[in-house]
């Protein structure tokens, strides 16, 4: 089962986790990205490319399901303005055994960071700037090639 959602609303982890659980699933791995406030960020705004974003997320999920024989893959990504502590993204993978779920979860978030059209803008008080892509993210994504 593949579930991809791009939404303005806060991410409900309990509901998403419960929806991912299934009778033949022995392992659920999740990753949640949060807005960090420890370096002065007061707001994080997420922009996306409607249509293309969902398609890219679905393709990623299909790739993970095929590669690790997953029971399911879920990606919920929030867009719009957020504040520190808010959940930006939730990834869940389910499988019969833990190795597949854990590896596929890492794969999805690594590849999401470099291959899906989202852009972050940070605000620190009155100052706003677009977040620059990180070379480390490219390296993390490349290890799955």
């Amino acid at each position, binding site marked *: 089962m593949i579930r991809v959602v791009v939404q303005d609303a806060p991410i409900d982890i309990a509901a998403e986790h419960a929806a991912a659980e299934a009778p033949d699933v022995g392992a659920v791995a999740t990753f949640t990205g949060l807005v960090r406030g420890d370096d002065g960020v007061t707001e994080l705004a*997420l922009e996306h490319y409607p249509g293309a974003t969902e398609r890219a997320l679905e393709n990623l999920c299909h790739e993970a399901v095929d590669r690790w024989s997953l029971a399911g893959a879920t990606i919920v990504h929030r867009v719009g303005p957020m504040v520190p502590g808010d959940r930006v993204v939730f990834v869940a993978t389910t499988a019969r055994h833990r190795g597949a779920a854990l590896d596929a979860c890492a794969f999805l978030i690594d590849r999401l960071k470099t291959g899906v059209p989202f852009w972050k803008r940070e605000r620190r008080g009155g100052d706003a700037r677009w977040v620059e892509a990180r070379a480390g993210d490219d390296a993390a994504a490349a290890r799955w090639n």
Partner: protein
Amino acid sequence: MAIDVLYFAWVRESIGTGAERVEVPDTVTSVAGLIDWLAVRSEGHATAFVDRDRLRAAVDQVFVSLDTPIAGAREVAIFPPVTGG
């Protein structure tokens, strides 16, 4: 050839719009060629496109390199490297 061109993030801000429909001459054959052709439309376009290494693109919603042909394309998006997650 009519193409919908979409802009995101600071490319969008520099150009001042998120989308424009343009009539592209047949001499423009690739995404890079389209960027060259768009760059002279305004100061905002020129500023957004000054550093090609910082630009990424999608043709009909599929990520592509800038040397990709645009023959038959209906929608081309031009944007910075992505930073989601």
